[in-house]
């Protein structure tokens, strides 16, 4: 019985992946469709989240190995970082610090509760890092996971508009813009420009994770 939910989740995931590959519609991304279908099925069958989690928690535990595998991305693209070190380090540091400060500041301004402020602060980092930073700050991992997903989708929608309005023409600039703000969703979008933009976005994502890891604590403390 405990294998029904994870098996269903994986089946829905691969179906939605196939659907997304065929249609390329942003709202059909597997990360929106799969949870939506699984939540729908949970509600319809009257099952609780705990039932789902008992069988399916190991799917979420694969985030650890997947994060470590980013070392391979970093290793393969380190030459991009070396070539554009100044632009990437400066752009990512400025953007990464702003991400935490603006998210926490706005959340505070809107009167959101402290755990929600903590949950939103690291959302520009790649999800595994965002979730673990959020946990260390006192945030809720689910809220951070969903907020990080929403950030990625926002970035995919707004990023190309900003690239046009700001007349960002270099692959480096485009990659940094997308990778710093919108993690892996940003990389996917950057790859639609060219391979260089994708590589810069990949490096920007990894660097943003480190900036968030180091700076989130002290910055969020300013907004308490």
């Amino acid at each position: 019985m405990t294998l029904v939910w994870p098996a269903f989740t994986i089946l829905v995931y691969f179906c939605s992946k196939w659907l997304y590959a065929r249609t390329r519609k942003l709202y059909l991304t597997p990360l929106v469709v799969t949870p939506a279908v699984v939540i729908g099925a949970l509600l319809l069958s009257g099952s609780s989240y705990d039932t789902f989690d008992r069988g399916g928690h190991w799917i979420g535990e694969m985030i650890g190995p997947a994060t470590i595998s980013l070392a391979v991305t970093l290793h393969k693209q380190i030459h991009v970082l070396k070539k554009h070190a100044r632009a990437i380090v400066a752009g990512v540091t400025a953007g990464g610090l702003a991400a935490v400060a603006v998210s926490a500041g706005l959340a505070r301004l809107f009167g959101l509760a402290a755990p929600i402020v903590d949950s939103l602060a690291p959302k520009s980092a790649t999800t595994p890092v965002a979730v673990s930073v959020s946990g260390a700050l006192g945030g809720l991992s689910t809220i951070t996971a969903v907020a990080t997903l929403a950030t990625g989708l926002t970035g995919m929608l707004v990023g190309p508009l900003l690239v046009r309005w700001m007349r960002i023409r270099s692959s480096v600039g485009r990659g940094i813009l997308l990778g710093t703000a919108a993690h892996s969703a940003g990389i996917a979008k950057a790859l639609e420009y060219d391979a260089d933009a994708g590589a810069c976005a990949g490096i920007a994502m990894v660097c943003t994770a480190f900036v968030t890891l180091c700076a989130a604590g002290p910055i969020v403390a300013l907004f308490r």
Partner: protein
Amino acid sequence: MKSAKKIVKITLQVGFFVVMSRASDLAVEALRLPIPGSILGLLALFALLELNIVKLAWIELGAEWLVAQMLLFFVPATVGIVRYKPLIESSGAAILVTILLSTAVVMTIAGWVGERLGKASREEAASL
């Protein structure tokens, strides 16, 4: 037969990442490090790759598979949102506006700085 061999390879290599993940979680716990286990693992593996102790070919297929299925691993966390219905009703709009505005601001800053310095370094390279 070729694809069966590939599946075995991917499985073994993903197994390597799972073992590495467990080991780095344990190391972070034992040494009381202030970073997540997965980040320690990422840094350790990056060092091993750069030093050529671990060869790229040993783990490349597994890494590609893990990165390609990354979205699947976040599904459980996202499904967890069903437990937060009251929060979504009371604060969902404010959270959404925060996400929209902050993402736009971050993109503007990162893109502007990156574009300026990216261009500067290219012009420098061209003038050499």
